[in-house]
């Protein structure tokens, strides 16, 4: 029972964001937009966290900046462009499909395609059934008997 309660408590716990109460916008709708944008922006110090997850001081500055821009009436796209203009596409955790990100987007499909071609080759080269093999000629049969050392 105790164990079950502990498990349930663990399940109920959710990942904690780094957003501090004093950073939040008073308007709930604006705050949820800010959260959504922050989740897509990479923390340039820690790199594999979003600024929404990161405790780095620079991430905090960027969260505050995102909220300022939203409060000033900017659209989500404008806020994102503002940050990208300063740090480049790398800050977007989901980079746009562009010339220099094509390899990133198409690479996995290319590998899948190559694998598929490989399997197709392998399947074609494998004999489909043993019946396709021609029956042994009399000479082959005699040679086989000799090698097997049988006397019938």
């Amino acid at each position: 029972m105790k164990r079950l309660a502990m498990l349930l408590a663990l399940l109920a716990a959710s990942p904690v964001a780094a957003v501090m109460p004093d950073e939040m916008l008073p308007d709930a709708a604006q705050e949820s937009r800010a959260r959504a944008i922050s989740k897509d922006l990479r923390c340039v110090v820690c790199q594999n966290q979003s600024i929404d997850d990161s405790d780095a001081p620079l991430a905090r500055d960027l969260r505050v900046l995102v909220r300022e821009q939203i409060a000033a009436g900017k659209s989500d796209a404008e806020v994102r462009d503002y940050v990208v203009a300063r740090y480049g596409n790398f800050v977007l955790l989901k980079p746009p499909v562009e010339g220099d990100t094509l390899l990133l987007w198409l690479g996995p499909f290319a590998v899948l395609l190559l694998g598929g071609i490989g399997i197709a080759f392998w399947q074609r080269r494998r004999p489909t059934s043993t019946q396709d093999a021609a029956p042994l000629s009399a000479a082959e049969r005699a040679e086989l008997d000799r090698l097997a050392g049988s006397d019938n």
Partner: protein
Amino acid sequence: MKRLLFILPILVFAGLAAFLGFGLTQDPKELPSQLIDRPLPEFALPGIVEGGPGLASASFRGEPRLLNVWASWCAACPQEHPVLERIAKEGFPVYGIAWKDKPEDSRAFLARYGDPYSGMGSDFPGRTAIDLGVTGAPETFVVDKKGRVRFKQIGPISPEIWEQQIKPLMQQLRAEA
């Protein structure tokens, strides 16, 4: 043909190993600057001495300058400091932005290590650093005569980087019209 198919996996492996091996030599912390060949973002910062002179982007005109983003809390900055002093001694102007640093801490750092800077601005809120695309300290920008950013050094300037990369660039920028 059969021979080729046989060595294909080896070729693919070699290609992948070379690609990933190259990846290991790249430092993911070094983001390419968005500012190269673009004008220095506008800023007008207060100084680190109350009532003293600050630093504004408008003053980056007429001669090539270095703009060094540093902080007293930055671990690599004391290591870079002698190089900055040498650069200043060689006659190349170095300007500084103290990033997310209390002015009194910045002053204490300069009192302890010496002050090679021709001008200093304090960016305690960190907003100018974001406009500059700074990801950490120290970072140094090379700004040309027209106020455009031409080069960004991420991390401390070593004597080698100064001799081999930045100094030749500064000399070239001085010669530019």
